[in-house]
């Protein structure tokens, strides 16, 4: 095939473009693109790279605030955490690849998100992940859980960044599309942040890291399409990770940045070399010219098309200050990395690629970047589920069974089997992690009294029932979890996972969830600084439950003043902060004990959220509480059971309330916390003064979890059920 021959509509359609989009390319170029040019357009215009369906709505998020140094649009968001320190973080999905090849899909998801963070000049210091799997009884689920968990561990453990937190859900809605969202947090100095925009023309463009191979070609396009029966055939589009190479890349990149030789830098992630050079030149308003013969190649006879679309992992592209090539080369050699100057920035506003003496691509950058298609997808008014009257929801006939069902259900059972496979302690700054029973992970800002609190949250069943309230709740829960360890919530990253946006009812979920999240972010002063959108999570026309995952970051000015829920002491009085109406719609009790998924989710009163949270944070700061746990899935019953198990100390609940017992114990009303304190009078007096509702609900002591004549369950039994589910499930053969 001649490199100049027109690619044709047929090839465009195979590359995931629509007939209209192909026609638009021809209009922009005044001619038909050749195969390489079409390849460049197809990946840059893929949903994954262009955000063409979502971009219009992402503008609704508040992205500014006193702590924000750099909001969305860079590789990761940057916030100021005082004293010249900055936290750099982002969350990103690797859903499609992880479903096809769980180990490599998840591993390269972790690798990719770390690159986004160190590309900005930050050393990665913590990883989290938000995972959603199908029904445990689905024949694929066990293998996917096993592969994803070992992939996450295999990569993060080797690179030496602790995996400190996350969440895992199971639901049949994910049978055909699992979600693997990975979050990375890094630390940098505020005056040493690196960006991707090329600052000028005529600067050297240097490639470094692993060689380019034929793996992951069209990964971004694959991630922008639905699955069908032939999805297995897409395995070759999944990249293969090498965490050892990543570790060397981190050290080399940070060392190179330290020399002052780096003018701009970008990792090669989705759409590989294409997106990195297009974005760097595009953002800088310059042009770029590359000689592909110089690209370090793993295989012989790679075509220009393959090199531009390869998603081989652990590769970076940097633009150097003039005359600094030798210095850079010394560092690459020290770390054993492949590297080459493969081109220069230009002033043409075009991307020009040469290969074997021919120009194989020569197109303007603007249509690939700011003038890429932008869609206002139609959406219908969503149907919002109706509130359930708690009095009409049946109470359990057998309370012990109901409690044990909740404590041992797939969404609430202990995740020990998962997190014991993750190195949570490397870097020796981890204070709270998945294994220590706090609502958020806490890592120290190395060598300082400061700590970062980190969490990942979303309750998909709420978003399914009411996208707007569910979106609000995801943000509010992240804010609450950070607060529950005593941190001041600062900012979020998000990972918006939805189905096919071309369907108006899916687009409605997306739009309403974004609007709900935006509202919560505004009221809670919790701006969005980075994020990722993953659409087309559908198989055979069936979409996943809408899942806007939120990654929250908060700051503890003194990490020694923080709270967990493993630290309740004998004779502590338990108080619930916040109002309980007994909201049972879309609750865990309803689903797990009654087999129903109807009803509206609990509404989120953001003003109450803020007031109650500020109150709890002050109690923690003043060391007036021994333990704190947010009330979420499973309501007071599950929160108290978890606090008892983590503290290895019994709890007797003796709530006095007008509500039905099951509404009070299983209701999932928002903006609430369970606190254990030796000085209830002081706390109640302070609450009165602050206008915060608190109510005594029980007392710590003994060796069982009990409530009046409803239930009395020995802790050992509770623990066996809670700890048993996941390992038993994983060791069963299907």
């Amino acid at each position, binding site marked *: 095939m001649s490199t100049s021959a027109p690619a044709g509509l047929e090839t465009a359609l195979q590359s995931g473009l629509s007939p209209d989009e192909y026609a638009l390319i021809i209009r922009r170029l005044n001619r038909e693109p050749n195969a390489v040019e079409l390849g460049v357009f197809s990946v840059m215009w893929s949903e994954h790279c262009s955000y063409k369906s979502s971009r219009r709505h992402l503008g609704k998020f508040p992205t500014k605030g006193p702590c924000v140094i750099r909001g969305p649009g860079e590789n990761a968001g940057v916030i100021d955490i005082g004293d010249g320190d900055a936290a750099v973080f982002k969350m990103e999905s690797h859903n499609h690849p992880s479903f096809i090849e769980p180990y490599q899909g998840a591993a390269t998801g972790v690798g990719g998100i770390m690159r986004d963070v160190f590309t900005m000049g930050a050393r990665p210091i913590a990883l989290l992940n938000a995972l959603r799997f199908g029904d445990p009884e689905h024949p694929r689920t066990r293998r996917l859980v096993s592969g994803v968990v070992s992939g996450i561990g*295999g990569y993060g453990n*080797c690179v030496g960044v602790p995996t400190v937190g996350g969440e895992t859900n199971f639901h049949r809605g994910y049978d055909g599309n699992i979600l693997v969202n990975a979050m990375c947090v890094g630390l940098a100095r505020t005056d040493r942040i690196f960006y991707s925009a090329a600052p000028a023309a005529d600067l050297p463009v240097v490639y470094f890291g692993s060689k380019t191979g034929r793996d992951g070609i069209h990964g971004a396009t694959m991630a922008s399409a639905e699955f069908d029966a032939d999805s297995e055939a897409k395995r070759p589009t999944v990249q293969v990770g090498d*965490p*050892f190479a990543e570790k060397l890349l981190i050290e080399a990149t940070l060392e190179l940045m330290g020399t002052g030789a780096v003018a701009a830098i970008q990792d090669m992630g989705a759409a590989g070399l294409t997106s990195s050079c297009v974005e760097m030149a595009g953002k800088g308003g310059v042009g770029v010219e590359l000689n592909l013969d110089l690209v370090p190649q793993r295989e012989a006879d790679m075509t220009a098309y393959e090199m531009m679309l390869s998603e081989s992992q652990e590769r970076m592209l940097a633009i150097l200050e003039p005359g600094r090539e030798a210095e850079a080369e010394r560092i690459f050699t020290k770390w054993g990395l492949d590297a080459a100057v493969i081109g220069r920035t230009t002033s043409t506003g075009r991307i020009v690629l040469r290969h074997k003496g021919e120009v194989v691509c020569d197109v303007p950058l603007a249509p690939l970047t700011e003038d890429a298609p932008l869609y206002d997808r139609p959406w219908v008014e969503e149907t919002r589920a109706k509130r359930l009257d708690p009095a009409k929801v049946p109470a359990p006939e057998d309370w012990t069974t109901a409690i044990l069902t909740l404590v041992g259900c797939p969404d609430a059972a202990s995740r020990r089997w998962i997190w*014991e496979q993750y190195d949570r302690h*490397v870097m*020796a700054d981890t204070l709270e992690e998945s294994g220590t029973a706090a609502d958020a992970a806490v890592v120290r800002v190395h060598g300082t009294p400061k700590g970062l609190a980190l969490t990942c949250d979303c309750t998909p069943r709420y978003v399914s029932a009411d996208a707007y309230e569910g979106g609000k709740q995801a943000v509010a829960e992240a804010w609450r979890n950070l607060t529950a360890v005593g941190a001041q919530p600062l900012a979020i990253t998000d990972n918006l996972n939805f189905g096919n946006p071309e369907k108006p009812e899916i687009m409605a979920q997306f739009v309403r969830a974004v609007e709900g999240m935006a509202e919560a972010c505004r009221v809670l002063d919790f701006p969005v600084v980075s994020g990722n959108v993953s659409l087309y999570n559908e198989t055979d026309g069936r979409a996943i439950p809408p899942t806007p995952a939120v990654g929250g970051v908060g700051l503890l000015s003194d990490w020694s003043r923080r709270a967990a829920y493993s630290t309740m002491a004998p004779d502590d009085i338990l108080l619930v902060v916040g109002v309980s109406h007994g909201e049972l719609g879309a609750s865990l009790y309803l689903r797990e004990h009654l087999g129903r998924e109807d009803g509206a989710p609990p509404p989120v009163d953001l003003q109450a959220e803020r007031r109650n949270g500020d109150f709890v944070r002050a109690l923690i700061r003043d060391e007036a509480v021994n333990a704190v746990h947010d009330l979420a899935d499973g309501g007071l019953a599950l929160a108290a059971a978890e606090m008892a198990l983590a503290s290895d100390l019994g709890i007797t609940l003796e709530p006095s309330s007008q509500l039905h017992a099951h509404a009070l114990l299983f209701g999932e009303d928002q903006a609430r916390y369970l606190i254990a304190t030796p000085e209830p009078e002081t706390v109640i007096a302070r609450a009165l003064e602050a206008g915060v509702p608190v109510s005594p609900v029980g007392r710590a002591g003994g060796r069982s979890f009990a409530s009046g004549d409803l239930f009395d369950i020995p802790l050992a039994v509770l623990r066996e059920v809670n700890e048993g589910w996941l390992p038993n499930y994983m060791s069963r053969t299907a």
Partner: protein
Amino acid sequence: MKAAVLVFPGSNCDRDCKVALERSVGAQVSMVWHKETELPAGLDLIVLPGGFAYGDYLRCGAIAALSPVMSAVRDAASKGVAVAGICNGFQVLCEAGLLPGALLRNVGLKYVCKFIDLDVVNGQTRFTAAFGETRTARMTMGNGEGNFFADEDTLDRLEGEGQVVFRYRENPNGSARSIAGIVNEAGNVLGLMPHPDRAFESALGSADGALLFKSVMASA
């Protein structure tokens, strides 16, 4: 006290070891790149840190054991300088022949990260004297190939000569005779799978690891 921490490509606890030594005993620590052929003069301790040297390719520790710096380590060890291999460092020392035995894949076939309780089996070594009457230690472990193996004769000899220094109270990975840490015959080379460098102050869940570094300092 003067210490060196070796840095192989893929080491990831090098900084942790440096910080642990500085904070627990105020050691003066140099970082030594694996390509160096000489070590700083006057060392009291050489640490081979945890991580995945050379990505654990081929076998854990196999390639690192051939690094240029290892000749210098061998020389120093033969002259009686204390050498401690932690986690991946233990694997390197076994591959280098400085310690007997080998570390195999964990019996559960999974990476295991958790806090574990150890018995201090021999409190008379250069690495354990400071434990004193305390005969237990709590540390965190994190490895996929920490299953200590040696033939029965070697194990008997290690036990008989007091070379078994730390033993798991609950065996997490199938290690022969629940061995977590051993020393060589001369008693100056230690291999330990759990991490004292992640348990050197109470904020991290345990400060017992600091006793190991204090022991070395007392003997220096």
